[in-house]
Protein backbone atom coordinates (compact mmCIF):
# COMPACT_ATOMS: atom_id res chain seq x y z
CA UNK A 1 0.00 0.00 0.00
CA UNK A 2 1.00 3.58 -0.65
CA UNK A 3 3.84 2.50 -2.95
CA UNK A 4 3.08 5.32 -5.36
CA UNK A 5 3.26 7.94 -2.60
CA UNK A 6 6.58 6.64 -1.27
CA UNK A 7 8.32 6.90 -4.63
CA UNK A 8 6.16 9.60 -6.12
CA UNK A 9 8.83 11.47 -8.14
CA UNK A 10 10.09 8.23 -9.73
CA UNK A 11 6.56 7.03 -10.35
CA UNK A 12 5.57 10.32 -12.07
CA UNK A 13 8.71 10.15 -14.18
CA UNK A 14 7.74 6.67 -15.32
CA UNK A 15 4.28 7.80 -16.52
CA UNK A 16 5.36 11.10 -18.12
CA UNK A 17 6.28 11.04 -21.81
CA UNK A 18 9.71 12.42 -22.60
CA UNK A 19 11.01 14.40 -25.54
CA UNK A 20 13.56 12.90 -27.90
CA UNK A 21 16.93 14.50 -27.25
CA UNK A 22 18.24 13.55 -30.69
CA UNK A 23 15.24 15.12 -32.42
CA UNK A 24 15.53 18.30 -30.33
CA UNK A 25 19.22 18.58 -31.11
CA UNK A 26 18.60 18.07 -34.83
CA UNK A 27 15.92 20.80 -34.90
CA UNK A 28 18.16 23.15 -32.91
CA UNK A 29 21.09 22.47 -35.24
CA UNK A 30 18.94 23.04 -38.31
CA UNK A 31 17.35 26.35 -37.32
CA UNK A 32 20.24 27.64 -35.19
CA UNK A 33 22.62 26.80 -38.02
CA UNK A 34 20.35 28.51 -40.55
CA UNK A 35 20.32 31.71 -38.44
CA UNK A 36 24.12 31.66 -38.22
CA UNK A 37 24.43 30.95 -41.95
CA UNK A 38 22.12 33.89 -42.66
CA UNK A 39 24.31 36.06 -40.39
CA UNK A 40 27.41 35.00 -42.29
CA UNK A 41 25.74 35.79 -45.61
CA UNK A 42 24.92 39.27 -44.28
CA UNK A 43 28.54 39.85 -43.21
CA UNK A 44 29.83 38.70 -46.59
CA UNK A 45 27.32 40.93 -48.37
CA UNK A 46 28.36 43.98 -46.34
CA UNK A 47 32.00 43.18 -47.00
CA UNK A 48 31.44 42.89 -50.76
CA UNK A 49 30.01 46.41 -50.80
CA UNK A 50 33.21 47.65 -49.19
CA UNK A 51 32.47 47.61 -45.45
CA UNK A 52 35.40 46.57 -43.26
CA UNK A 53 35.11 43.29 -41.32
CA UNK A 54 34.37 44.77 -37.88
CA UNK A 55 31.71 47.20 -39.15
CA UNK A 56 30.13 44.44 -41.27
CA UNK A 57 29.82 42.34 -38.09
CA UNK A 58 28.14 45.22 -36.27
CA UNK A 59 25.69 45.80 -39.13
CA UNK A 60 24.89 42.08 -39.18
CA UNK A 61 24.11 42.06 -35.45
CA UNK A 62 21.90 45.15 -35.74
CA UNK A 63 19.98 43.59 -38.63
CA UNK A 64 19.53 40.20 -36.90
CA UNK A 65 18.31 41.85 -33.70
CA UNK A 66 15.92 44.04 -35.69
CA UNK A 67 14.50 41.04 -37.53
CA UNK A 68 14.14 39.03 -34.31
CA UNK A 69 12.28 41.89 -32.59
CA UNK A 70 10.02 42.28 -35.60
CA UNK A 71 9.26 38.54 -35.72
CA UNK A 72 8.58 38.64 -31.95
CA UNK A 73 6.08 41.46 -32.41
CA UNK A 74 4.39 39.56 -35.22
CA UNK A 75 4.16 36.44 -33.05
CA UNK A 76 6.30 34.40 -35.47
CA UNK A 77 9.41 34.01 -33.31
CA UNK A 78 7.70 31.96 -30.57
CA UNK A 79 6.30 29.62 -33.24
CA UNK A 80 9.79 29.15 -34.66
CA UNK A 81 11.20 28.64 -31.14
CA UNK A 82 8.65 25.93 -30.40
CA UNK A 83 10.22 23.92 -33.21
CA UNK A 84 13.83 25.00 -32.83
CA UNK A 85 14.36 25.15 -29.04
CA UNK A 86 17.97 26.03 -28.33
CA UNK A 87 18.37 26.82 -32.04
CA UNK A 88 16.51 30.10 -31.56
CA UNK A 89 17.59 30.62 -27.94
CA UNK A 90 21.37 30.61 -28.33
CA UNK A 91 21.96 33.04 -31.24
CA UNK A 92 21.69 36.78 -30.59
CA UNK A 93 18.15 36.64 -31.97
CA UNK A 94 17.14 34.71 -28.82
CA UNK A 95 18.47 37.52 -26.66
CA UNK A 96 16.51 40.05 -28.73
CA UNK A 97 13.36 37.95 -28.28
CA UNK A 98 13.89 37.66 -24.52
CA UNK A 99 14.13 41.46 -24.18
CA UNK A 100 11.39 42.48 -26.61
CA UNK A 101 8.74 39.98 -25.47
CA UNK A 102 8.47 41.31 -21.87
CA UNK A 103 8.52 44.86 -23.25
CA UNK A 104 5.47 44.03 -25.37
CA UNK A 105 3.73 42.08 -22.60
CA UNK A 106 4.18 44.63 -19.81
CA UNK A 107 3.69 47.76 -21.92
CA UNK A 108 0.12 47.98 -20.56
CA UNK A 109 1.54 48.51 -17.06
CA UNK A 110 3.25 51.75 -18.12
CA UNK A 111 6.64 52.89 -19.40
CA UNK A 112 8.39 52.88 -15.99
CA UNK A 113 6.81 50.05 -13.94
CA UNK A 114 5.80 48.03 -16.98
CA UNK A 115 8.43 48.22 -19.71
CA UNK A 116 11.20 49.76 -17.58
CA UNK A 117 11.08 47.37 -14.65
CA UNK A 118 10.22 44.21 -16.56
CA UNK A 119 12.16 44.46 -19.82
CA UNK A 120 15.12 42.47 -18.44
CA UNK A 121 13.01 40.02 -16.42
CA UNK A 122 14.23 37.15 -18.63
CA UNK A 123 17.49 38.57 -20.00
CA UNK A 124 18.59 40.02 -16.64
CA UNK A 125 20.27 36.84 -15.37
CA UNK A 126 22.07 36.46 -18.71
CA UNK A 127 23.46 39.97 -18.42
CA UNK A 128 24.39 39.64 -14.73
CA UNK A 129 26.10 36.28 -14.96
CA UNK A 130 27.61 37.13 -18.35
CA UNK A 131 29.36 40.15 -16.83
CA UNK A 132 30.29 38.20 -13.70
CA UNK A 133 31.83 35.30 -15.61
CA UNK A 134 33.79 37.64 -17.91
CA UNK A 135 35.10 39.43 -14.82
CA UNK A 136 36.22 36.10 -13.31
CA UNK A 137 37.87 35.06 -16.58
CA UNK A 138 39.56 38.47 -16.81
CA UNK A 139 40.89 38.01 -13.29
CA UNK A 140 42.26 34.55 -14.15
CA UNK A 141 43.86 35.99 -17.30
CA UNK A 142 45.47 38.77 -15.26
CA UNK A 143 46.76 36.32 -12.65
CA UNK A 144 48.15 34.17 -15.47
CA UNK A 145 49.92 37.13 -17.06
CA UNK A 146 51.45 38.24 -13.74
CA UNK A 147 52.79 34.74 -12.99
Amino acid at each position, binding site marked *: *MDDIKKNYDDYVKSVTPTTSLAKNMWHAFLIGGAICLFGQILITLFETIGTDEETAGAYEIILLVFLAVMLTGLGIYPKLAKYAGAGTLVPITGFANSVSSPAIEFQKEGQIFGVGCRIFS*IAGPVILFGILSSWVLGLLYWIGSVI
Partner: protein
Amino acid sequence: MFLGSASVSFDEDIFIQGYASVVGKKEGEGPLGNLFGEVVTDPMFGGDSWEDAESQLQMKLVTAAIKDSGLKDSDIRYIFAGDLLGQLIATSFGVKNFNIPLFGLYGACSTMGEALSLGSVSLAAGCAEHVLCMTSSHFGGAEKTFRFPLDYGSQRKFSATWTVTGGGAVVLGTAGGFAKITGITTGRIVDYGYKDKENMGACMAPAAADTILRNLEDFNIAPDSYDRIITGDLGLIGQRILLDLLEEKGYSISNLHMDCGIEIFDGHTQDTHAGASGCGCSASVLCSLILKNIRDGIWKKVLFVPTGALFSPVSSNEGDSIPGIAHAVVIESECR
Protein backbone atom coordinates in the same frame (compact mmCIF):
# COMPACT_ATOMS: atom_id res chain seq x y z
CA MET B 1 -26.12 17.30 7.77
CA PHE B 2 -22.40 16.67 7.96
CA LEU B 3 -21.05 13.24 7.20
CA GLY B 4 -17.78 11.45 7.87
CA SER B 5 -14.63 13.51 7.89
CA ALA B 6 -15.24 16.14 5.25
CA SER B 7 -18.67 15.87 3.64
CA VAL B 8 -22.10 17.41 3.85
CA SER B 9 -25.29 15.72 2.67
CA PHE B 10 -27.95 18.36 2.08
CA ASP B 11 -31.42 17.68 3.42
CA GLU B 12 -32.46 21.08 2.06
CA ASP B 13 -33.25 21.57 -1.63
CA ILE B 14 -30.43 23.26 -3.50
CA PHE B 15 -31.36 23.65 -7.12
CA ILE B 16 -29.33 24.59 -10.14
CA GLN B 17 -31.57 27.20 -11.73
CA GLY B 18 -29.45 28.57 -14.53
CA TYR B 19 -25.97 28.49 -15.96
CA ALA B 20 -23.77 30.05 -18.61
CA SER B 21 -20.46 29.39 -20.27
CA VAL B 22 -18.31 31.77 -22.29
CA VAL B 23 -15.07 30.67 -23.96
CA GLY B 24 -12.40 31.90 -26.35
CA LYS B 25 -11.75 31.00 -29.97
CA LYS B 26 -9.48 27.98 -29.43
CA GLU B 27 -12.00 26.42 -26.99
CA GLY B 28 -14.76 27.14 -29.50
CA GLU B 29 -12.82 25.19 -32.13
CA GLY B 30 -12.49 22.20 -29.78
CA PRO B 31 -14.73 19.12 -29.51
CA LEU B 32 -17.21 20.89 -27.19
CA GLY B 33 -17.35 24.04 -29.33
CA ASN B 34 -21.06 23.94 -30.14
CA LEU B 35 -22.07 23.32 -26.51
CA PHE B 36 -20.77 26.58 -25.08
CA GLY B 37 -23.16 29.46 -24.51
CA GLU B 38 -20.93 31.97 -26.26
CA VAL B 39 -17.65 31.76 -28.16
CA VAL B 40 -15.76 35.07 -28.28
CA THR B 41 -13.18 35.19 -31.07
CA ASP B 42 -11.51 38.40 -29.88
CA PRO B 43 -8.83 37.32 -27.37
CA MET B 44 -9.16 40.72 -25.65
CA PHE B 45 -12.95 40.33 -25.23
CA GLY B 46 -13.26 44.02 -26.13
CA GLY B 47 -10.97 44.96 -23.21
CA ASP B 48 -7.52 46.51 -23.39
CA SER B 49 -5.37 44.05 -21.42
CA TRP B 50 -5.43 40.33 -20.61
CA GLU B 51 -6.71 41.14 -17.12
CA ASP B 52 -9.44 43.40 -18.47
CA ALA B 53 -10.34 40.73 -21.03
CA GLU B 54 -11.01 38.23 -18.24
CA SER B 55 -13.13 40.79 -16.37
CA GLN B 56 -15.18 41.33 -19.53
CA LEU B 57 -15.59 37.55 -19.72
CA GLN B 58 -16.91 37.43 -16.14
CA MET B 59 -19.31 40.27 -16.88
CA LYS B 60 -20.72 38.26 -19.76
CA LEU B 61 -21.01 35.19 -17.52
CA VAL B 62 -22.93 36.94 -14.75
CA THR B 63 -25.36 38.52 -17.22
CA ALA B 64 -25.93 35.29 -19.14
CA ALA B 65 -26.34 33.04 -16.08
CA ILE B 66 -28.85 35.35 -14.39
CA LYS B 67 -30.76 35.61 -17.67
CA ASP B 68 -30.77 31.81 -18.03
CA SER B 69 -32.25 31.44 -14.54
CA GLY B 70 -35.04 33.91 -15.36
CA LEU B 71 -34.08 36.13 -12.40
CA LYS B 72 -33.01 39.75 -12.00
CA ASP B 73 -29.60 40.95 -10.73
CA SER B 74 -31.24 42.08 -7.50
CA ASP B 75 -32.52 38.54 -6.81
CA ILE B 76 -28.96 37.29 -6.30
CA ARG B 77 -27.97 37.61 -2.66
CA TYR B 78 -24.30 36.65 -3.02
CA ILE B 79 -21.72 35.97 -5.68
CA PHE B 80 -19.09 33.34 -4.85
CA ALA B 81 -16.35 33.81 -7.41
CA GLY B 82 -12.63 33.85 -8.07
CA ASP B 83 -9.92 33.56 -10.69
CA LEU B 84 -6.19 32.89 -11.04
CA LEU B 85 -4.85 36.43 -11.12
CA GLY B 86 -3.22 38.18 -8.15
CA GLN B 87 -5.74 39.67 -5.71
CA LEU B 88 -8.58 38.22 -7.87
CA ILE B 89 -8.62 41.26 -10.15
CA ALA B 90 -10.55 39.56 -12.94
CA THR B 91 -13.37 38.96 -10.46
CA SER B 92 -13.34 42.29 -8.64
CA PHE B 93 -13.44 44.31 -11.86
CA GLY B 94 -15.73 41.80 -13.54
CA VAL B 95 -18.53 41.90 -10.96
CA LYS B 96 -18.25 45.45 -9.62
CA ASN B 97 -21.01 46.91 -11.79
CA PHE B 98 -23.60 44.38 -10.65
CA ASN B 99 -23.70 45.68 -7.06
CA ILE B 100 -24.14 42.16 -5.70
CA PRO B 101 -22.36 41.21 -2.44
CA LEU B 102 -19.25 39.17 -3.24
CA PHE B 103 -17.26 36.45 -1.56
CA GLY B 104 -13.94 36.37 -3.45
CA LEU B 105 -12.42 32.89 -3.51
CA TYR B 106 -9.03 31.46 -4.34
CA GLY B 107 -8.78 27.73 -4.85
CA ALA B 108 -6.61 27.81 -7.99
CA CYS B 109 -8.36 25.67 -10.59
CA SER B 110 -10.60 24.06 -7.95
CA THR B 111 -12.43 27.38 -7.49
CA MET B 112 -15.66 26.24 -9.14
CA GLY B 113 -15.93 23.40 -6.62
CA GLU B 114 -15.25 25.79 -3.77
CA ALA B 115 -17.79 28.32 -5.07
CA LEU B 116 -20.52 25.68 -5.52
CA SER B 117 -19.77 24.23 -2.06
CA LEU B 118 -19.97 27.56 -0.25
CA GLY B 119 -22.97 28.67 -2.31
CA SER B 120 -24.80 25.45 -1.41
CA VAL B 121 -23.90 25.76 2.26
CA SER B 122 -25.19 29.33 2.42
CA LEU B 123 -28.48 28.29 0.77
CA ALA B 124 -28.84 25.29 3.09
CA ALA B 125 -28.24 27.54 6.08
CA GLY B 126 -31.06 29.78 4.98
CA CYS B 127 -28.78 32.75 4.39
CA ALA B 128 -29.92 33.33 0.82
CA GLU B 129 -32.56 32.43 -1.72
CA HIS B 130 -30.36 32.70 -4.80
CA VAL B 131 -26.58 32.79 -5.19
CA LEU B 132 -24.28 32.85 -8.19
CA CYS B 133 -21.10 30.74 -8.35
CA MET B 134 -18.53 31.59 -10.97
CA THR B 135 -14.91 31.33 -12.02
CA SER B 136 -12.79 32.01 -15.08
CA SER B 137 -9.30 31.91 -16.52
CA HIS B 138 -7.57 33.48 -19.51
CA PHE B 139 -4.62 31.99 -21.39
CA GLY B 140 -2.89 35.35 -21.86
CA GLY B 141 -3.28 36.46 -18.25
CA ALA B 142 -2.20 33.08 -16.86
CA GLU B 143 0.90 32.88 -19.07
CA LYS B 144 1.86 36.42 -18.06
CA THR B 145 1.30 35.74 -14.36
CA PHE B 146 2.76 32.27 -14.04
CA ARG B 147 5.07 31.65 -16.98
CA PHE B 148 6.63 33.81 -19.67
CA PRO B 149 5.43 36.72 -21.82
CA LEU B 150 3.29 35.36 -24.64
CA ASP B 151 5.78 36.27 -27.38
CA TYR B 152 8.79 34.71 -25.63
CA GLY B 153 10.12 31.76 -27.60
CA SER B 154 10.24 28.64 -25.44
CA GLN B 155 9.28 25.00 -25.59
CA ARG B 156 6.60 23.40 -23.41
CA LYS B 157 7.03 19.95 -21.97
CA PHE B 158 4.70 17.12 -23.01
CA SER B 159 3.35 17.19 -19.45
CA ALA B 160 2.39 20.88 -19.66
CA THR B 161 -1.24 21.91 -20.04
CA TRP B 162 -2.94 24.74 -21.91
CA THR B 163 -4.82 27.31 -19.81
CA VAL B 164 -8.42 27.62 -20.94
CA THR B 165 -9.72 31.03 -21.91
CA GLY B 166 -13.23 30.79 -20.59
CA GLY B 167 -15.41 30.34 -17.59
CA GLY B 168 -18.70 29.21 -16.20
CA ALA B 169 -21.34 30.61 -13.88
CA VAL B 170 -24.13 28.75 -12.10
CA VAL B 171 -27.17 30.22 -10.34
CA LEU B 172 -28.25 28.19 -7.31
CA GLY B 173 -31.59 28.65 -5.59
CA THR B 174 -33.86 27.07 -3.01
CA ALA B 175 -36.93 26.53 -5.21
CA GLY B 176 -37.24 24.94 -8.64
CA GLY B 177 -34.54 23.86 -11.05
CA PHE B 178 -33.47 21.05 -13.36
CA ALA B 179 -30.81 19.62 -11.05
CA LYS B 180 -29.87 19.53 -7.40
CA ILE B 181 -26.66 19.72 -5.47
CA THR B 182 -27.15 17.00 -2.88
CA GLY B 183 -23.76 16.83 -1.24
CA ILE B 184 -20.23 18.13 -1.07
CA THR B 185 -16.85 16.84 0.04
CA THR B 186 -14.36 19.56 0.84
CA GLY B 187 -10.77 19.01 -0.19
CA ARG B 188 -7.77 19.25 2.06
CA ILE B 189 -4.27 20.25 0.99
CA VAL B 190 -2.53 17.15 -0.33
CA ASP B 191 1.17 17.44 -1.03
CA TYR B 192 3.31 14.56 -2.26
CA GLY B 193 6.32 16.88 -2.49
CA TYR B 194 6.20 17.18 -6.28
CA LYS B 195 7.79 20.33 -7.69
CA ASP B 196 7.50 20.40 -11.49
CA LYS B 197 5.29 23.34 -12.46
CA GLU B 198 5.09 21.97 -15.98
CA ASN B 199 3.37 18.84 -14.72
CA MET B 200 0.41 20.19 -12.79
CA GLY B 201 -1.55 16.97 -13.33
CA ALA B 202 0.96 15.15 -11.13
CA CYS B 203 0.64 17.86 -8.46
CA MET B 204 -3.17 17.61 -8.36
CA ALA B 205 -3.89 13.90 -8.87
CA PRO B 206 -3.18 12.92 -5.23
CA ALA B 207 -5.64 15.60 -4.05
CA ALA B 208 -8.29 14.36 -6.49
CA ALA B 209 -7.78 10.78 -5.32
CA ASP B 210 -8.00 11.85 -1.67
CA THR B 211 -11.23 13.80 -2.14
CA ILE B 212 -12.88 11.08 -4.24
CA LEU B 213 -11.93 8.42 -1.67
CA ARG B 214 -13.30 10.45 1.22
CA ASN B 215 -16.47 11.16 -0.72
CA LEU B 216 -17.04 7.43 -1.21
CA GLU B 217 -16.21 6.68 2.43
CA ASP B 218 -18.19 9.57 3.93
CA PHE B 219 -21.31 8.74 1.90
CA ASN B 220 -20.60 5.02 2.22
CA ILE B 221 -21.21 4.36 -1.46
CA ALA B 222 -19.47 2.57 -4.33
CA PRO B 223 -18.04 4.52 -7.28
CA ASP B 224 -20.71 3.14 -9.62
CA SER B 225 -23.44 4.98 -7.76
CA TYR B 226 -22.26 7.87 -9.95
CA ASP B 227 -22.83 7.94 -13.71
CA ARG B 228 -19.59 9.88 -14.02
CA ILE B 229 -16.79 11.00 -11.74
CA ILE B 230 -15.53 14.18 -13.40
CA THR B 231 -12.25 15.82 -12.43
CA GLY B 232 -11.30 19.36 -13.37
CA ASP B 233 -8.01 19.61 -15.18
CA LEU B 234 -5.76 16.64 -14.46
CA GLY B 235 -4.94 16.10 -18.12
CA LEU B 236 -3.65 12.83 -19.55
CA ILE B 237 -0.82 12.27 -17.07
CA GLY B 238 -2.87 13.33 -14.04
CA GLN B 239 -5.70 11.03 -15.10
CA ARG B 240 -3.34 8.08 -15.30
CA ILE B 241 -1.96 8.88 -11.83
CA LEU B 242 -5.46 9.29 -10.34
CA LEU B 243 -6.57 5.92 -11.72
CA ASP B 244 -3.39 4.25 -10.40
CA LEU B 245 -3.75 5.86 -6.94
CA LEU B 246 -7.38 4.74 -6.63
CA GLU B 247 -6.51 1.29 -7.98
CA GLU B 248 -3.95 1.03 -5.18
CA LYS B 249 -6.77 1.71 -2.70
CA GLY B 250 -8.94 -0.94 -4.31
CA TYR B 251 -11.20 1.25 -6.44
CA SER B 252 -11.42 1.02 -10.20
CA ILE B 253 -13.11 4.05 -11.75
CA SER B 254 -11.59 3.96 -15.25
CA ASN B 255 -14.97 3.35 -16.91
CA LEU B 256 -16.61 6.19 -14.92
CA HIS B 257 -13.91 8.79 -15.02
CA MET B 258 -13.90 11.86 -17.22
CA ASP B 259 -11.53 14.82 -17.04
CA CYS B 260 -12.62 18.25 -18.28
CA GLY B 261 -9.01 19.00 -19.21
CA ILE B 262 -9.00 16.08 -21.63
CA GLU B 263 -12.47 16.77 -23.08
CA ILE B 264 -12.25 20.45 -23.95
CA PHE B 265 -9.45 20.29 -26.55
CA ASP B 266 -8.49 17.82 -29.23
CA GLY B 267 -4.93 17.05 -28.20
CA HIS B 268 -3.99 15.74 -31.64
CA THR B 269 -5.00 18.78 -33.68
CA GLN B 270 -4.88 21.60 -31.11
CA ASP B 271 -1.36 21.03 -29.77
CA THR B 272 -2.34 21.20 -26.11
CA HIS B 273 0.13 18.54 -24.90
CA ALA B 274 -1.25 16.90 -21.70
CA GLY B 275 -4.61 18.70 -21.89
CA ALA B 276 -6.22 21.83 -20.56
CA SER B 277 -6.10 23.61 -17.21
CA GLY B 278 -7.27 26.78 -15.51
CA CYS B 279 -10.30 27.65 -13.38
CA GLY B 280 -12.27 28.15 -16.57
CA CYS B 281 -11.61 24.59 -17.73
CA SER B 282 -13.84 22.72 -15.27
CA ALA B 283 -16.27 25.66 -14.99
CA SER B 284 -16.90 25.94 -18.73
CA VAL B 285 -17.21 22.17 -19.20
CA LEU B 286 -19.62 22.01 -16.24
CA CYS B 287 -21.72 24.77 -17.78
CA SER B 288 -21.85 23.10 -21.18
CA LEU B 289 -21.42 19.33 -21.53
CA ILE B 290 -22.05 18.27 -17.93
CA LEU B 291 -25.12 20.33 -17.07
CA LYS B 292 -26.58 19.70 -20.53
CA ASN B 293 -26.31 15.94 -20.00
CA ILE B 294 -27.86 16.32 -16.56
CA ARG B 295 -30.62 18.58 -17.87
CA ASP B 296 -31.34 16.02 -20.62
CA GLY B 297 -31.37 13.20 -18.06
CA ILE B 298 -28.50 11.37 -19.77
CA TRP B 299 -26.60 11.43 -16.47
CA LYS B 300 -28.63 11.09 -13.26
CA LYS B 301 -25.87 11.63 -10.74
CA VAL B 302 -22.33 12.86 -11.16
CA LEU B 303 -19.45 13.72 -8.86
CA PHE B 304 -17.87 16.96 -10.07
CA VAL B 305 -14.35 17.36 -8.70
CA PRO B 306 -12.51 20.52 -9.80
CA THR B 307 -8.81 20.16 -9.05
CA GLY B 308 -6.37 22.92 -8.13
CA ALA B 309 -2.59 23.08 -8.14
CA LEU B 310 -1.75 25.70 -5.53
CA PHE B 311 1.21 27.00 -7.47
CA SER B 312 2.89 30.25 -6.55
CA PRO B 313 5.95 31.48 -8.45
CA VAL B 314 7.31 32.74 -5.10
CA SER B 315 7.15 29.49 -3.12
CA SER B 316 8.22 27.54 -6.20
CA ASN B 317 11.33 29.72 -6.64
CA GLU B 318 12.02 29.26 -2.94
CA GLY B 319 12.20 25.52 -3.52
CA ASP B 320 8.81 24.50 -2.17
CA SER B 321 6.59 21.84 -3.68
CA ILE B 322 3.25 22.46 -5.37
CA PRO B 323 0.37 21.27 -3.15
CA GLY B 324 -2.95 20.22 -4.61
CA ILE B 325 -6.58 20.57 -3.57
CA ALA B 326 -9.84 19.18 -4.96
CA HIS B 327 -13.43 19.93 -3.97
CA ALA B 328 -16.18 17.47 -4.83
CA VAL B 329 -19.80 18.40 -5.54
CA VAL B 330 -22.57 15.81 -5.97
CA ILE B 331 -24.98 16.89 -8.73
CA GLU B 332 -28.20 14.97 -9.34
CA SER B 333 -30.64 15.36 -12.21
CA GLU B 334 -34.25 16.23 -11.41
CA CYS B 335 -35.41 14.43 -14.59
CA ARG B 336 -37.40 11.40 -13.57
